[in-house]
């Protein structure tokens, strides 16, 4: 083995196993409907959960909140198209001339009875997605061929994943065989009053400014389908609110946090800035 390769191997083997994270402090979350009850019921019935909704409407926050509420460790995997089955299940590594099996995040979550959250599942390749199938039906097992082990998920384990059905790409659809194993919970932008409460709680800005931000969000949501793929999400409003709370002028904050985040199209950028300027 060549020198550089050896050092690469050494660097890799020093990697530690993914650690599950306990959510210590209660994350701020406002329920928009009965999603908490549905999630709890699904958890109790050991059925995996699929969170659907546009970006920035609170899916990830909801999972954190539920992990806190159910007092289970949370393991989040952000999916991408290079994610392999081994990345999820685990692989052999070498330390001190010994081979050591290291669990992947999914196997780790199963072992410790945590909540495994696969974020943006459609970004993962379809062949990768398939490894969760035996885990996501009533068998609740995770076969680890390499390791010669069959993990049985304890009743505390829960699989959750998220995706955005608004994508129009035909290459990013969820297979029926995958989606039909899950209970779906739909998320959307919260109604104005609730969104206002959330923005104020997250950013501490004046209620008036929060109202204006919500008006701006409505305006951009009016533009959805007319040049914008998505309107401004609650997350963007919170970003703008945080900038405003730090003393950035509101118009500048909206340009940076909302307009530039939504689009690159010069006309659209200008239109959104004009809309923000008309409010602030």
């Amino acid at each position, binding site marked *: 083995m060549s020198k550089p390769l050896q050092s690469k191997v050494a660097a890799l083997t020093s990697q530690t196993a993914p650690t599950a994270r306990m959510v210590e402090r209660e994350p701020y979350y406002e329920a928009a409907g009965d999603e908490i009850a549905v999630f709890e019921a699904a958890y109790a019935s050991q059925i995996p959960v699929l969170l659907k909704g546009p970006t920035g409407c609170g899916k990830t926050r909801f999972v954190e909140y539920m992990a806190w509420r159910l007092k289970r460790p949370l393991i989040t995997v952000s999916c991408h198209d290079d994610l392999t089955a081994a990345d999820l299940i685990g692989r052999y590594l070498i330390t001190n001339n010994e081979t050591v099996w290291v669990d992947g995040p999914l196997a780790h979550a199963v072992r410790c009875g945590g909540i495994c959250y696969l974020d943006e599942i459609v970004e993962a390749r379809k062949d990768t997605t398939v490894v969760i199938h035996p885990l996501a039906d009533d068998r609740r097992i995770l076969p680890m061929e390499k390791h010669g082990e069959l993990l049985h998920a304890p009743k505390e384990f829960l699989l959750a994943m998220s995706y955005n059905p608004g994508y129009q790409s035909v290459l990013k659809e969820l297979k029926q065989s995958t989606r039909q194993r899950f209970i779906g919970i739909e998320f959307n932008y919260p109604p*104005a009053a609730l969104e206002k409460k959330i923005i104020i709680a997250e950013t501490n800005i004046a209620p008036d400014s929060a109202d204006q931000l919500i008006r701006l969000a*409505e305006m951009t949501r009016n533009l959805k*389908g007319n040049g914008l793929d998505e309107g401004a999400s609650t997350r963007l409003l919170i970003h703008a609110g945080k900038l405003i709370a730090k003393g950035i002028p509101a118009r500048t904050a909206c340009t940076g946090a909302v307009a530039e985040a939504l689009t690159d199209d010069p006309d659209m950028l200008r239109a959104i800035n004009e809309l923000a300027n008309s409010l602030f």
Partner: protein
Amino acid sequence: MPLGAARLEEQLDEALDPVLSSRRTARTLALALAPLARELQDFVLHWVGVIARTSGELAYQFAAIAPDVMRKVEPVAAEAWIIHAMDTFDREGLYRGSAVLKDIDSFVAASRHQAHAVAFEDARNVLELFICGLAGRRLKLEIAGEAYTDTETIHLPARIFEHASGAGNFLAYKALATHLWAQTRYGTFNVDVVDKLASYTDPARALALYHYLETTRIDAIIARDLPGLARELATLRQHVEPPAECGRLRDTAASAADSLALVDQLYATFNPPHLSYMGTLHPEIVATVRAARMRREKKELQFELAKMLPERPAADATPDDGEARPRYSVINADAVDGVELTLDGTPVTLPEHVNDLLQSISQDLGEIPDEYLTPAADGDYRDNHAAEDPADAIEQGPHDEDGAVLYNEWDYKRRHYRKNWCVLREVDVQPGNPDFIDTTLARYAVQVGQLRRTFEMLRGEDKWLKKQQGGDDIDLDAVITAFADMRSGMELPERLFQQRHKAERDIAVMFMVDMSGSTKGWINDAERESLVMLCEALEVLGDRYAIYGFSGITRKRCEIFRIKRFTDRYNDTVRRRIAGILPQDYTRMGVAIRHLTALLNAVDARTKLLITLSDGKPDDYSDNYRGEYGIEDTRQALIEAHRGGIHPFCITIDREAREYLPRMYGAVNYTVIEDVARLPLKVADVYRRLTT
């Protein structure tokens, strides 16, 4: 060396002779001109001669004012001013012409600002999006001689140059557009303006007053709802304070009725000023447009509400159930979150287009009247075309079915297919004029360049293939696994390399182009241009693609036009066929989809797409295809395609498409392009988004 007064007088006498008299001589003119430099004197004399050929009087006035002007203004600017005055004289006569001459100051001021003028075309896109973002009924923007709205279109002037900067002129556009939007949004026309104001001795004056009062009311609303914009508008308000009586218009509850009441109060005493951002009020035009819209929307709403009724069991469908008919009622007319409806007490979720409809109606009427909420009775909304001549010549006539393919068609009423119902033939498009392609490519040269670059980037997405027998680099993961395997006593695997590999986009796409008669004109042009741009982009990308047109008349004569088969190269023949795409007859979509699905199924690709370019609903001549039958058949054909692993998608320019496309294609599998002119730029963009 300047000319002396005597010499000047001589020349002026000669040029201005017809308009001079014993009391009006050239002497005073000459004395005033004498102190000027020689070049300026020559300039003035030259133009006096030129103007005198058009009008002696105008020339005299020019000569009188010229010495003064020439001291202030460069000859170039003076020349523009003279030409402008002569143009005005030609168009509007001496009075206006000499007014322009005398108003040199404002002309000079305006010409200084010309450099900062903003043209409608430059402001249009931004303003259209801006107005769309402000909510309310969708409004179009059009160019017109004066700024006004008919409550469906906002008309704006071609150029604005009154302000000293581009930003100022854009603001003037924005102010006009916002106020015209606000007139429709906040009910300026919801009172009977025409009738009420006709009773005054001077209706025009009453209208001007009403307009001013409404502007004051809208200014107050803008100050409340859009404070940032209000601050900008304040700079345009020219410090005119409305009279004290207008105070009540600033009230949150103030409405157009209050303005109307105030007209009565102030008619005799108050002279309304005209603010630069008011535009013009055309209550008669509005009345026509509004009445037509209200009729249309009432029918549409009743029809939609009827569609949303739960299906009653057949036995229950007796005609005498007037009392038992389900009733809709409004529970929340708050405009912000949309109107909420209940059906017999249970809230109903409304599709987006019904919501828009309710919004638009309540914008016109301030509420949803009860009679609007009566669902159309069964049959009321049935298509009136359905009953037309069933015995159609083509239907009856003898038909050669050789060389044709027969397709089933879905009859939603029978819930069964009609076997071999449609007769379809493939034909070639007559090659058209290749100049069309060149013109298109020239016109969109910049965009084509951009498109090519974007698509090149898509293609360029390299992938590392892992666990290869040979390759550019060592696959570290594989080596570690192998090492571990070896340690644990297993055999050493051989595949330890990774190799860079161009991502294989295994995509085959079929474009199905609407060639129905309704595409005639610029829609057809836009379609053809779109195809040219698309081909340019797809050639870079290397995806396999085919293009077919469809049209036909009745089920016996459905036609598919070959433009580019999967096997054809994008060559001159194909280009000429694209140029040759011409509007034909009708849009029987189901059979076209079935045929193209069959063609697409024969292609081996991991991802298959069927993209329809269309301008409206499925439709055919005389045999009930229009309306629900066509929509259901198309939907069925798409379901069949989907079953075969094909992803259907629709790009349409039909603004009403949101009413039926979700039913046919699904909620996210279509896109509506509002502006035909943007179609060529958008189609390739949509394709890129679909396949990444």
